[in-house]
């Protein structure tokens, strides 16, 4: 687990160094740079903050201070499947917090956390602007409207089944290969 994160972070550092050179050293690039990094790597690591600070000749504290001010930035790796539960006004009136709780319970993590196997992470978002379909949850880029607690279970179950199926097929393939070599 720790190894994969280390490898990921090394890769991130290399990538960032390569594209930073394309930006001039003006402060106005700060937020766009952080956005670009997050878009490419899903989160901002300590190294990423340090690199950006070095390039723009700011202190890492300053950069971190700006980044934490905005809701968009995250500082730990998200899960492969990112769940975002909308808690806008319309979603609240229609029970969005219950949906969030149900995801938390099903996955055993809290808002802002990632499961240990890095499969899922949950976030609350202020409003995705689909208020007419409230309550709304996003799974990766897909918007699910009119979510009910039972729909949450269906969604999570769907992912688990897909994962189990992939696992079975992988095992079948592996055993098939073994038989072939025998």
């Amino acid at each position, binding site marked *: 687990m720790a190894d994969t994160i280390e490898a990921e972070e090394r890769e991130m550092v290399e990538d960032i160094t390569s594209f930073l050179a394309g930006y001039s050293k003006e402060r106005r690039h700060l937020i766009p740079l952080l956005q670009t990094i997050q878009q490419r790597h899903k989160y901002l690591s300590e190294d990423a903050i340090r690199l950006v600070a070095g390039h723009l000749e700011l202190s890492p504290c300053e950069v971190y201070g700006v980044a934490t001010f905005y809701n968009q930035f995250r500082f730990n790796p998200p899960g492969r499947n990112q769940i975002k539960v909308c808690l806008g006004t319309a979603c609240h009136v229609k029970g969005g917090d*219950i949906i969030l709780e149900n995801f938390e319970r099903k996955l055993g993590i809290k808002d802002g956390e990632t499961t240990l196997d890095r499969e899922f992470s949950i976030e609350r978002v202020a409003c995705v602007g689909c208020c007419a379909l409230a309550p709304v949850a996003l799974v990766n880029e897909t918007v699910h409207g009119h979510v009910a607690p039972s729909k949450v279970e269906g969604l999570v179950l769907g992912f688990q089944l897909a994962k189990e199926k992939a696992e079975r097929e992988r095992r079948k393939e592996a055993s098939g290969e073994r038989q072939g070599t025998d």
Partner: protein
Amino acid sequence: MREKAEAQIAAESETALPTIVIGMATCGLAAGALETKKGFEETLQERGIEARIKSVGCIGHCYAEPVVIVHNPGFPPILYHQVTPGKARMLVRSFLEDGDPLFEYMLGAMEANDMIPAVGDFPRFNREERVVLDLCGDIDPERIEAYIARGGYAALAKALQGQPQGVVAEVSDAGLRGRGGAGFPTGRKWALAAGAESAGKTVICNADEGDPGAYMDRTILESNPHQVLEGLALCAYAVGAKEAVVYVRAEYPLAVKTVTRAIEQAVRWRLLGKDILGSGVDLDVSVFQGSGAFVCGEETALIQSIEGRRGMPQHRPPYPVEKGLWGLPTVINNVKTLASIPRILQGGAEWYRTIGTGKSPGTAIFSVVGNVTHPGLVEIPMGVTLRSLIFEVCGGIPKKKRFKAVQIGGPSGGCLPAEFLDTPIDFDSLSQAGAMMGSGGMVVMDEDTCMVDVARYFLDFTQKESCGKCTFCRIGTRHLLDILERITKGEAREGDLDLLDELSRDIQGGSLCALGRTAPNPILTSLRYFREEYEAHVYEKRCPAMVCRALTAFYIDLDKCARGCDACVGSCPVEAIFTTLNRKKGIDQSLCVKCGECMVACPPEYSAVCKVSPPEKAPIIERPAKAAEG
């Protein structure tokens, strides 16, 4: 130029092919428009039918998504609602092949005719007056030709032949007030900027729509980005700016994409960029993505964030029109304000003044959501009453529930009870009633909404979004939230209600920007209009609307419960429901998370699940020992 675009568009529509128009803005996509489109494409191919599929932005009827309009030669254009891929298949087969337009799926015809009831006869369409949204959902937002063919950029071309002062004068005469919320006269803002002596000036389109419950800026950008860009160009020309920034939230990826592409197209057509239409006027437009801070909707905070800092509001004066982005004069206008400009210049100030009321001319765009039958985006002339908007345009409250309140203006606004339904919608009447126009979010609440909980929700939001600069806003909102949380949990103390009131007024007085000054509004209005509800929470530990979860409980009425029906057991996410010895069901109160799923799952012919407040009123049913489970 216009002829060229018209020729292109006309060539396409003259081919007499059936055209299928699909609304593909974020809400349409969320409802499955992409699958619907695929359904159409596949069936058309399968059946060997030639037809065009046109993607447009938001048609405005969010309750009916995915929305499809079918133009079949020989029929009027027909609007279909909730078109699933299956319905798409049927439509192709029955309508395009056999000429049966499938009445059961349609909402109505788009034009008056003898065959089919037209949507124009519905109250919604009667009341609505689409000025800004006119072309939304009608043209393809990805193609500049579509906009130009409908008269787009003509206002800009005409303005460039005259003087910038002419544009300012026209906007001033029209009496347009900023649609971002405060309602400051746009013409006056522009005149100030135009008069400022400076080598460089900037204009900014504010599309940082952070209000939970509001999404019209997103919809306009996704459905008709060129109208906004034309307004932006007109503004830049009027005040003498050579640089423009479109500030869009990064949470609106589709809007970012649409507007970025629109800018590229406009530059290619020489409508933006260097030497616009050969007039010698330049305008460089860029897109800046906001990163999700509500306070950045405030103009000085927005400027801070473009400059790469924390988005904290600054003291005004100096106002941005004197000293804004990079210390230069800057005009910041909301998306809706800018989108109104081309229409005003086309129609003239006099025409614009005929719409709306004397002090608030023009139209208001609202996203009406919550407990209404037909939620969606609505554009009405200013001065229409709340009652007309909620009950006629949006179909009233579903499930025969009673109207309780309408929350206008997001976290900065207020809740108005039924007595205010006859208030006309305009800047001044709404603020008089204690709410505000705000950016146009409107959440309708029925009797099942707890006003204390709603106030708590908004305070939770503003407390999280406070930038922290002013002590009153930073710590005061935290205190307010704590008190409200105590109240919703039934742990209120003597004097809490007075404290809420007092502290709210202090925060209003002691905050620098509108976020802090308006944060207590939801509390103050709900305290004023729904005080008895607060009192029930405080003194009787009871939530009259049965929303606050600490103060309510679910139980199953054994007289109504059917033997052997297991609907509720299966629906419970925490296995709190068990079977009693006589095969009826009971709820284990210690496990119940009060999600209400069992209430939904219980078949309507039994409706055995009940809700009570305070929770002690729920009868206690013992879970039987092991034997029953086996």
